[in-house]
């Protein structure tokens, strides 16, 4: 079977630190996989390896069956990425930012189509024509989501996307992820937010010191049990 995302014995060594210790992972289309872990646990390293921004020391990362390191540009056709803090181009409007990034992904949308994507992502229509420099973090995050959605990516890589968002914005974001997942998009989300992970995730992985120490379905336990389990691992 062709997985949307796959890691095979994926390792990354930074000089004297082993940041990722042979990760094995498969994520299917439509799945929302949440990776929990403290700062420095290896979550961002994993995302960077899937994005092809760093080369693995050994092992391989695959997107839609293609090895990332061997096809760094080709795999980008299948993925979209939303960082923790979406900083767009402040001198361009939300619409212009979306038009630029869509264009780079070879999509040439009309103004109406672009506006639809932004509104769908939760950005008020009147804000779309204002310069991004005046946007709040939540508004920028919504443009980031619109960029990802407009790309029609098969895989969505999210690096702590709800960090700093107010509860309303976080909820809207969760709903959008569920919609994308229902359409077959595989979502890989690195997060500290246990409750969000339990709410939207289909599976949760716990990472500690570069190692995936547990992998469980979100139906197996409730949020409190998940939190307890997570804290146990962190204090172990």
């Amino acid at each position, binding site marked *: 079977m062709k997985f949307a995302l796959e890691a095979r014995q994926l390792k990354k060594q930074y000089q004297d630190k082993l940041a990722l210790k042979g990760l094995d992972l498969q994520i299917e289309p439509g799945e929302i996989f949440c990776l929990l872990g403290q700062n420095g646990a290896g979550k961002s390293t994993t995302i960077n390896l899937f994005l092809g*921004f*760093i080369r693995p020391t050994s092992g391989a990362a695959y997107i839609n069956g293609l090895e990332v390191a061997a096809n760094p540009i080709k795999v980008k056709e299948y993925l979209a990425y939303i960082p923790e803090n979406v900083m767009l181009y402040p*001198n361009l409007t939300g619409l212009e930012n979306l038009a630029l990034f869509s264009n780079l*992904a070879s999509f040439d949308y009309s103004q109406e189509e672009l506006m639809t994507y932004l509104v769908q992502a939760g950005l008020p229509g009147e804000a779309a024509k204002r310069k991004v420099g005046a946007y709040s973090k939540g508004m920028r995050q919504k443009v980031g989501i619109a960029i990802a959605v407009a790309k029609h990516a098969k895989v969505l890589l999210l690096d702590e996307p709800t960090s700093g968002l107010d509860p309303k914005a976080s909820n809207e974001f969760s709903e959008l992820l569920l919609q994308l997942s229902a359409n077959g998009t595989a979502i890989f989300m690195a997060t500290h937010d246990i409750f969000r992970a339990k709410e939207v995730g289909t599976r949760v992985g716990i990472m500690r010191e570069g190692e995936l120490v547990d992998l469980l379905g979100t139906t197996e336990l409730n949020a409190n049990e998940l939190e307890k389990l997570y804290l146990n691992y962190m204090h172990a």
Partner: protein
Amino acid sequence: MVKSIAQKEFISTLRDRRFVVLSVLVLLLLLAATVVGLYSYHTQQQERDVAQQTVNHQFQNSADRHPHRMAHYGSYAFRPKSSISFLDFGLDSYTGASVFMEAHRQNSANFSQAQQSSSLIRFGEMTVAFVLQMLLPLLIIFLCFSTFTQEKETGTLKILLSQGVSLREIAWAKIAGYGKTVALVVGPALLIASLLLFGRSGFEWHTDVLVRLLLFIGFYLVYFFIFVVLSVVVSGVHQRSSTALVTLLGIWILCCVIIPKASANLGNTLYTTPTRAQMDADVHEEVAKGIDGHNSQDARAEAFKKELLQKYGADSLSQLPVNFDGIIMAVGEEQSTKVYREYFAELTDIFQKQNRVSEWAGFLNPYLAVRNLSMGMAGSDFPHYLHFQNEAEQYRYHLAQSLNHIQTTRLKYKDKTTRLSADTWKELAPFTYEAPPVQWALGSHLISLVALFLWLALVCTLGLRLIDKIQIA
């Protein structure tokens, strides 16, 4: 892809108030330098035209004189300014504007702008070339220093790359975007300069001027392109905007201030020029070894006399079919000219060697390469000055020998009383000067030309290889 990012850079920059303020300032400086340069060119050219016409008229309408007296009366050659020298004054302000052409001695050009102006000229002049060579690179640096570092600091670089764009494509797009922005600042000023040049009254259309202007603009475009690529690459290899800015300002100081001064000083130290007094004394001593045209009793003149009498089978000089006084003058002129030319050639050689140091330094620094090419195209460099000096010397020698020939053929031996009328002087064509063509000017700066294009190749290949190695995560 490249087009989209380039357009984004262009629009973002135009919407940046800092850029607008800086660009308007630079554009105003360029326009001011163009207008001031053109005014200065007009004034000086007019003065020189009038002066040349006046001395030509005075020479051709001189009172009745003995031809040799006329040779001492002499004439002046005024150096016409090149049509596009208003864009780059080059050495024009420091080299002389006129040469006094007289019998027996070669004079160097005198009455430079610097000699006639206040000491403020030593601080440099605000010319179009100054703005283009020194200030435009600074504007480019302030525009581009954060182009990559800011994307790294804000994380937009990751989003860009996740869209399937390569680092090299981003770099080229940025270069294209900033190139367009720089063209927006420089374009209007150069367009106005061209319109002022070709539209002014009395302008004589010449392909050479057009080619020189196009090359002048072309060389600066290459120079700006080098700075844009350099700035983008430096921004790419740094992680922080502040360190990228410091590095780029360091490069600017090195290229535009330190290396030019150091290479000029090195040239002066390696190849020292003799003092004016020393050179005059040496020339005088050497000339004195030859025949003195004014003294026919001189021992060397005596030997020549015997030789001539023998040749014509005559017993005395008065029996010769030609005037011996004129012949001895011609021979003396030939000998003294040879001595002067040798000394001037040696001096010129030293100056050229000094200049060569700066030209070779162009391989270390694109500023020096473009500076030499700019002066070359504007006709305000040392080779153009030298060309004029040589033409004036050729004319001086021709004038002196023509007057000696008149004395030899129209006056009798020992005749010092006959005076020839102004009609005689009208037979002598006045001094006219035509500047060398553009290919000659290019040939004089081959080293700088190669250096500039080598810089272009270097930043486009090595620079962009560094871009490929940018650390993303």
